């Protein structure tokens, strides 16, 4: 049994995921964590007498070895590490929704303080690709930025949605680190510097990422899933009803391979084998876990696993020794194995008995009423499933439809569909009332996103009066573009927006792709190239045209730029196209974007104006206060009262001004996100090198504020005409 080697109880709360260990003086590891009221505390148990004298840091009134750092803003991310290798000690990085602070704790000075308009939701420190100096990389609203120790912006790119987690990992095994980005659109993207080399779609927001070793990394989702990827392949995953607050790789059983340590919202910490996900160790805290870290906190040369709970409890564990043979829990392995084997045996015996009883029941034919009650059904009962598109009617919107039916008079009592990402929870249940039971069921499905989904069906089949049912389990795949119905072309409604590209593929292959990705009626017969197909979106009725010319030129007409991107990405992976240059035009979308860009400028200027006003007001406050106090000293109570009244009014104005500033800022953020998303979307219309070229070129265009170039890049893919 592995026991903690130390336990601390700090009287400060720790904000989840915002805790880090650093050697801020070069030798002593200290724990830094964000706590309530926009403060960061630093726990330094090693040098007790050290006092900070500056205004920013002050001694915690609650504890002697904790000092507090005032950020005056809600902290959104925090990390520590060597930002400047020449310095020889670690810097503390604190991100908020508007700023990034790199702080030198030892000298009590700022290394840099940068305004980041996109906010900092996550931060990671380390070297990225070929960039020589260590970077503090922050992920904000759709944007990624990397700063060196002087605060120089050495890395900037955009990603699909708001970033929630970051990690550095040698993904392709070239000895250089790649950046893993988990974002709100459920994607894990891998950036080799600013080039996306891989994209994995998950089922929920990715809340944490951590490198394990080699190309292996762990991830956690907001729905309670944790798992391990090796490159683009998922090794294993488990789902819990609790949420994983923090994950970390640590070799707890001293076998030379890191385990995935997870801290959960219910206070549980568990260590899972990186290969199988099997739990090899667990412990419980009284409150949710805020962070899992490692460090030599006792300074005895051994690295401990350090788990921090939200209520300030900190426990450190040393890796298991060789004598423990990896057996970290108090039960003996043999006992567990015996129990498991016996359970297996019992299950097999039960199954055997089931078959025996089945043969017995078979002998006692014919079919009778009582059989139905006990759930005996004809052995040749089969279940048919069919996916189709239903165009809906007045009471029900258009949807994709799953039809399940039995092959005889048995009824379907209920259908459970387990699928990720398309229902509110992880499952959808259809349970008709006792009067509406029949041998077939139609289930409407409306996936919110265009992703291929595996539907795991469990169908309860029996008779009306049964108390036991057979469970038929099967899996159907819902194609990516199931929410598009094949319709007859109507030239008048053909969308003006289009993408145009050339894929050297035979028309039959394109038809194959169509069949796999759309729900086409069975009698659809597509002639040879050139041909065109027309779909209508079931979500908003928008039209989608796909035209193929003899030359292999493909034109996709749709007003939905995301859909166009999805189609191009889907085709590219189906035909294994590595690089694809695309000509695109989305007049409506581009016009909107133009407006957004104008707005961004406006908000920026308003922001500056408001800041200036605030500075003026603060001068006024100072003078009012001085004058009021003067009046008090002069015993001129009436003037003093007036001054204070003015001050009060001014305070009210300031509060109002703050609200306006807040709103302005929110709008600005929204618009910036829209701009970032636009760049991302323009990128998604291309594949491989052209994709990165577009993103880089767009970024440069925005920097140089050249809007016309920006749109040209989005259209043709390059800046030069």
């Amino acid at each position, binding site marked *: 049994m592995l026991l903690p080697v130390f336990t601390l109880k700090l009287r400060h709360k720790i904000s989840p995921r915002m805790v880090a260990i650093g050697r801020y003086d070069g030798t002593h590891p200290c724990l830094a964590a964000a706590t309530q009221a926009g403060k960061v505390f630093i726990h330094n148990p090693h040098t007790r007498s050290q006092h900070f004298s500056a205004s920013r840091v002050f001694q915690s009134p609650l504890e002697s070895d904790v000092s507090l750092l005032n950020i005056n803003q809600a902290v959104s991310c925090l990390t520590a590490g060597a930002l400047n290798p020449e310095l020889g000690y670690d810097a503390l990085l604190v991100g908020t929704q508007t700023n990034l602070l790199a702080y030198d704790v030892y000298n009590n000075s700022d290394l840099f303080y940068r305004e980041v308009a996109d906010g900092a939701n996550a931060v990671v420190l380390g070297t990225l690709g070929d960039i020589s100096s260590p970077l503090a990389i922050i992920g904000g609203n759709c944007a990624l930025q990397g700063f060196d120790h002087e605060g120089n912006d050495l890395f900037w790119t955009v990603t699909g949605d708001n970033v929630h987690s970051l990690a550095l990992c040698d993904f392709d095994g070239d000895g250089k680190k790649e950046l893993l980005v988990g974002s709100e659109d459920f994607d894990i993207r891998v950036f080799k510097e600013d080039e996306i080399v891989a994209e994995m779609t998950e089922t929920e927001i990715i809340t944490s990422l951590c490198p394990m070793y080699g190309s292996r990394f762990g991830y956690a989702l907001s729905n309670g899933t944790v798992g391990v990827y090796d490159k683009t392949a998922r090794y294993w995953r488990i789902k819990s009803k609790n949420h994983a607050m923090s994950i970390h790789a640590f070799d707890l059983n001293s076998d030379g391979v890191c385990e995935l340590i997870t801290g959960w919202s219910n206070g549980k910490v568990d260590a899972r084998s990186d290969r199988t996900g099997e739990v090899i160790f667990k412990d419980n805290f009284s409150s949710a876990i805020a962070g899992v870290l490692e460090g030599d906190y006792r300074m005895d040369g051994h690295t401990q696993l350090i788990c921090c709970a939200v209520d300030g409890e900190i426990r450190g564990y040393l890796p298991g020794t060789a004598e423990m043979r990896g057996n970290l829990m108090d039960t003996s392995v043999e*006992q567990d194995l015996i129990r498991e084997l016996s359970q297996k045996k019992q299950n097999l015996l039960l199954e055997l008995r089931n078959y025996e009883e089945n043969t017995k*029941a*078979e002998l006692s034919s014919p079919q009778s009423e009582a059989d139905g009650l006990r759930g005996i059904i004809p052995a040749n009962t089969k279940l048919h499933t069919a996916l189709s598109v239903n165009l809906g009617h007045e009471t029900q919107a258009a949807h994709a439809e799953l039809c399940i039916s039995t092959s005889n008079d048995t009824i379907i009592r209920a259908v459970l569909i387990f699928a990720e990402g398309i*229902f509110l929870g992880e499952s959808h249940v259809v349970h008709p009332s006792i009067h509406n039971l029949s041998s077939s069921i139609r289930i409407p499905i409306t996936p919110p996103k265009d992703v291929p989904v595996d539907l795991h069906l469990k169908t309860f089949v029996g008779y009306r009066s049964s108390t036991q049912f057979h469970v038929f389990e099967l899996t159907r795949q819902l194609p990516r573009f199931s929410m598009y119905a094949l319709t007859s072309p109507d030239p008048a409604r053909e969308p003006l927006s289009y993408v145009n590209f050339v894929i050297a593929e035979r028309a039959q292959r394109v038809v194959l792709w169509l069949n796999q990705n759309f729900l086409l009626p069975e009698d659809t017969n597509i002639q040879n190239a050139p041909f065109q197909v027309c779909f209508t979106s079931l979500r908003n009725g928008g039209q989608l045209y796909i035209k193929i010319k003899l030359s292999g030129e493909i034109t996709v007409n749709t007003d939905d730029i995301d859909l166009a991107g999805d189609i191009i990405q889907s085709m590219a992976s189906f035909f294994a196209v590595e690089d694809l240059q695309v000509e695109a035009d989305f007049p409506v979308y581009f016009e909107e974007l133009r407006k957004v860009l104008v707005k961004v400028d406006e908000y920026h200027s308003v922001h500056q104006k408001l800041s200036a006003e605030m500075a003026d007001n603060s001068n006024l406050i100072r003078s009012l206060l001085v004058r009021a106090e003067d009046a008090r000293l002069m015993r001129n109570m009436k003037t003093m009262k007036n001054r204070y009244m003015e001050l009060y009014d001014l305070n009210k104005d300031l509060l109002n001004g703050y609200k306006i500033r807040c709103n302005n800022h929110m709008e600005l953020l929204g618009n910036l996100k829209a701009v970032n998303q636009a760049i991302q979307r323009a990128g998604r219309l291309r594949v491989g090198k052209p994709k990165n070229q577009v993103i880089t070129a767009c970024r440069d265009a925005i920097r140089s504020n050249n809007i016309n170039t920006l749109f040209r890049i989005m259209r043709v893919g390059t800046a030069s005409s």
Partner: protein
Amino acid sequence: MDLNLNRADYLQVGVTSQKTMKLLPASRHRTTQKVVIGDHDGVVMCFGMKKGEAVAVFKTLPGQKIARLELGGVLNTPQEKIFIAAGSEIRGFTKRGKQFLSFETNLTESIKAMHISGSDLFLSASYIYNHYCDCKDQHYYLSGDKINDVICLPVERLPRITPVLACQDRVLRVLQGSDVMYETEVPGPPTVLALHNGNGGDSGEDLWFGTSDGKLGLIQITTSKPIHKWEIQNEKKRGGILCVDSFDIVGDGVKDLLVGRDDGMVEVYSFDNANEPVLRFDQMLSESVTSIQGGCIGKDGYDEIVVSTYSGWVTGLTTEPVHKESGPGEELKINQEMQNKISSLRSELEHLQYKVVQEREKYQQSSQSSKAKSAVPSFSVNDKFTLNKDDASYSLILEVQTAIDNVLIQSDVPIDLLDVDKNSAVVSFSSCDSESNDNFLLATYRCQANTTRLELKIRSIEGQYGTLQAYVTPRIQPKTCQVRQYLIKPLSLHQRTHFIDHDRPMNTLTLTGQFSFAEVHSWVVFCLPEVPEKPPAGECMTFYFQNTFLDTQLESTYRKGEGVFKSDNISTISILKDVLSKEATKRKINLNISYEINEVSVKHTLKLIHPKLEYQLLLAKKVQLIDALKELQVHEGNTNFLIPEYRCILEEADHLQEEYKKQPAHLERLYGMITDLFIDKFKFKGTNVKTKVPLLLEILDSYDQNALIAFFDAA
């Protein structure tokens, strides 16, 4: 002294019922004992442990499900004859496995509980109690509610035969011959009875009882009256008690109390100088503990607690240390034993696997033919659906002999499904199309591997009634599921009680008409929980109930042609009126319903609610302040500047938060009940006040008792 017990699994048999495992007395002192156990397949198995291997002494052929297993014999000799109750038959075996008795009792119901003392045999089926002496019928009693357990005070120590029945309606019935000597109420539905220290204690009249809501107690059954000695409340919200035994496991010369619960908890209580029980040890097993006994079976010289679980595991919690300090050689030997066991299990598994694959193929082939049928394998589901008095919610416990894959919960009434910390299953709520399919709740629980037991908490609303269904799918091939139904009754939050306060102002609802006693009884069963389904003997019946949430009461007295319901809560009467008239219309029975409303009762009920509401409001307010106060504390470093009230909140912060978490939505429920009360009060007057409800809620938001009462009066 710390009690340290190590778990050792011995053997697995089929699913077991409560009290079906016993240890045979050892022939010499300090040698290992044999275990005898009966399961649902009807197999009685007797085995001993030799070098860590279970060696069977005898094993009978399968038969009817074994409900009880007891040891007996001539009084004052070792009790080593084995008696089992299966169906309506009693069978006896010697310790070598020879059957010497087969006694068909001719009871119409199957036997549920059994006690043996010399040549006296005490049996009970669901409602019937029978006493046989030398297999001859002696006495008979028909109980008003289900009998859970039966015991007789030791006849060798007392001059009389005093059987005691543990009945579901929260009473112990003490019999004399065929008559009830007296009844005594216990704090919950008693599920198990045992003699104190195995012999009835100093007086020979002391009985332990355990209840289905997890309480324990000691009671002395004298000839004239019961004396309650102590009770242990179930503060930690553990499971119901299924079995108890006395054994000196601590080794201090005083027998300890061993307890097995239905959530898998095994506990040891020892007794202090004042003879009060003190918890010394507890360990969680993953499934219901059906039998428990102290003894020695694994290794000579080491005492242990032997338990059997629902899925048939016989497990020892032994004082034998896992790793002995006698040297490396010894440990190696233990490992060797284990390795042998594992390898033999593995080869057995391989063989089975092969057989299963063959059978599976056969089964697949049969699905090709058009005549063949496919039967669903039946598996047993151990379920319990009970009302918790403490937080007025229901808990549903499902247990299956193999791991559960998923459970679908469906309800045709609006209910809330609450999270239970113990559960590791992933719950997912599905959207319901309520109008066409009568679904108000559809939720799936996807269980983690090796989960055999699932606990759910359900909050119902009085007046809304219907059925809750659970579809349980275990992880076994061929995949099947079983459906279980549970009724949510109209007055679902009421609980049977035996005494009520007659001084309260009461509202009365009277039913008259052409209906039989059985009919009116069925209506009461329909409306209220904890009423026996069988119409009780006699012509007139009175039941008392208590609302577990508001503590209001209900008295129901009925006979052929008349039923009278009295309650101090108008809402209760209103619900009864609605439900009964609806039921009568459905069955086309002409029913005269008259009611008498007591205006004072509304004020009385509001006064009953007042302290609860005030407490909850204060608690909510305090909890709201905690975070802000804590922040101030961090900022200022101390709390000296705060007023005492706030300082007090800070000190009690953890406790307050815990209290608040324990009763989610308590305030909303109270508001709901006050609103119902308001509507019901005026419904009886014939006015609809639904439009005034927002006004009422406004008053509740700034709660003041007098203002509320005034509003009720004025409206």
